[in-house]
């Protein structure tokens, strides 16, 4: 098996403001993200040879072509739960690495606010009782993980709420520095801890925003990237792992880690040659759909030892100015979470950080960044890890 390392370059990116974009249709979001990416790369749409479209709604690859008016180029629609955009990027990168195409567009978009509800659709309302997970909404998956985490590591409810609240405060702080974020307000630890309970033990500020948004990337072969710009970003490693429902079918699954994340990170770290993720990675955009998810992800990715994420979080190690900035753009928590766009939004932040264009959130010359997604239940979902690096 070959590594994807240094074979594919990102030479342009675009990202809409995420949030309640009532005045914009999904078509508008697609156009805005695509044209920002074209402009950033200094290309015209007619240069694009193929496109990958990530979305979780019932729209298809035809929609991307139909909206952007491609000239009969191939368009592939990708759906892979919360890793949808990351998997679209992965498939596009493989096609470029194979030498089939020189210049491709990857675009992820979802418009969730038109659903008219605060959360996502429930899995319950099915023709029969769902015998595998009746009544489960996304908050349940991770609330149950939080309950088990407290039990496993002997944390009192108050201790857990403080640690989770600290993550929410951090991500709100970062989001407040980001004009494209869904939520741009700071919160206090007291607000986070005392917020109404959504799905115990998780409260309002433990849950991410459900948003509208789109993000796009232009990829080319690494050896051609210099024709377009000097500060391109290279793909160093990619991993994707899909659970086979082990979380429910195997009664020794501990539910305080996500095997998908572990396996995906192993693949990506091996490709990128990463031995110690905590020491080597400067910035990480991880899938904080809920605060507990960020806590467990940090352990799964090796950013801290198992059961000790709380110490690291409370010591500020994952803060914007900490040793390893986790979710410097506000994360799903505050940047928002249109499922089909999220993975590319994460790459957008790493890309801007590496180019020194992250404004008030700018870290001191980050050279290695990570993006991570997780969808559905631990042991019954998908995990994705992408490693990005500065050139040379």
């Amino acid at each position, binding site marked *: 098996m070959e590594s994807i390392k240094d074979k594919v370059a990102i030479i342009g990116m675009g990202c809409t403001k995420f949030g309640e974009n009532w005045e914009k249709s999904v078509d508008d979001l697609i156009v805005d993200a695509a044209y920002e990416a074209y402009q950033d790369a200094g290309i015209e749409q007619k240069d694009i040879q193929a496109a990958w479209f990530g979305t979780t709604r019932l729209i298809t690859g035809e929609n991307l072509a139909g909206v952007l008016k491609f000239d009969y180029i191939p368009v592939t629609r990708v759906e892979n739960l919360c890793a949808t955009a990351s998997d679209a990027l992965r498939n596009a990168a493989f096609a470029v690495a194979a030498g089939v195409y020189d210049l491709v567009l990857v675009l992820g978009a979802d418009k969730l606010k038109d659903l008219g*509800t*605060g*959360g996502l*659709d*429930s899995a*319950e*309302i*099915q*023709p*029969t*009782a769902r*015998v*595998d*997970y*009746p*009544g*489960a*909404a996304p*908050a*349940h998956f991770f*609330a*149950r*993980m*939080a*309950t*088990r985490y407290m*039990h496993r590591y002997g944390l009192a409810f108050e201790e857990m709420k403080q640690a989770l609240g600290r993550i929410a405060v951090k991500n709100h702080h970062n989001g407040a520095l980001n004009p494209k974020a869904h939520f741009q307000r700071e919160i206090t630890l007291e607000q986070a801890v005392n917020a*109404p*309970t*959504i*799905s*115990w*033990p*998780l409260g309002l500020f433990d849950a991410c925003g459900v948003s509208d948004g789109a993000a796009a990337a232009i990829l080319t072969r690494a050896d051609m990237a210099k024709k377009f710009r000097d500060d391109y970003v290279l793909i160093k490693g990619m991993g994707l792992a899909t659970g*086979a*429902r*082990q979380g*429910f*079918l*195997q*009664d020794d*699954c501990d*539910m305080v880690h996500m095997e998908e994340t572990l396996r995906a990170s192993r693949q990506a770290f091996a490709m990128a040659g990463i031995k110690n993720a905590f020491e080597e990675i400067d910035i990480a955009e991880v899938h904080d759909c809920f605060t507990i998810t960020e806590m467990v992800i940090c352990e799964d990715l090796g950013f801290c030892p198992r059961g000790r994420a709380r110490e690291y979080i409370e010591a500020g190690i994952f803060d914007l100015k900490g040793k390893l900035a986790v979710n410097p753009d506000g994360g799903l928590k505050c940047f928002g979470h249109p499922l089909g766009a999220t993975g590319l939004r994460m790459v957008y932040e790493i890309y801007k950080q590496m180019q020194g264009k992250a404004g008030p959130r700018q870290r001191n010359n980050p050279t290695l960044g990570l993006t991570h997604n997780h969808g559905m239940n631990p042991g019954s979902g998908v995990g994705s890890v992408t490693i990005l690096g500065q050139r040379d």
Partner: protein
Amino acid sequence: LDDPSLDVDQNIGITKARSTANTKGLHDFLTFRTLYQIFGVRLAAMAHTVPKKKTLKRGNLYPPVRPSASAIWRDRDAIFRLHAGKCRSCGSVQYPPQRICSRCKAKDSMEPVRLSDRKARIFTYTLDNLAQVPAYDLPIVDSILDFEGGGRGCFLMTDRDPREVKVGLEVEMTFRRMHTAGGMNNYFWKCTPVRAAGREKESK
């Protein structure tokens, strides 16, 4: 009942207590006085009481889909008998029954095992205040159970006081209506705390 939205029908007193492995009679339920109001709300759904108004606005964010008779028929053993599969090759119990064993990958090796009369313990759970499923009493208790003798499943809990729910709590299974749509009921199993202490008192 304290809930002003409910009127108790006269017939509530003469409901016969049925006694099977999985079903408690009304008398058994009423033994646990702290749950009296919760039972009252539940009983409203069983037509013993007459709701004057819709008790909850939340819990029906999406209209329930009409149950599919053919889908229910195909999965009848897993749904109504609560059959899990036990792998003949590796012995592990899995719910719902699988064509391919999750552990040893053996194909079509599962023999049925009935979970409905087994006790289980809560592995983990959440108390959901914004449930999207039809609900008479919030929070919804969504629990992951580990069954005696192996096997894990995800079930809603009923006839419970949210304050008593904790990891390790012993539960038993009870057959319930999940939702009704298009004139069809959709039935499935829920779990409920084992009331051993109350039964002992009863026998004395």
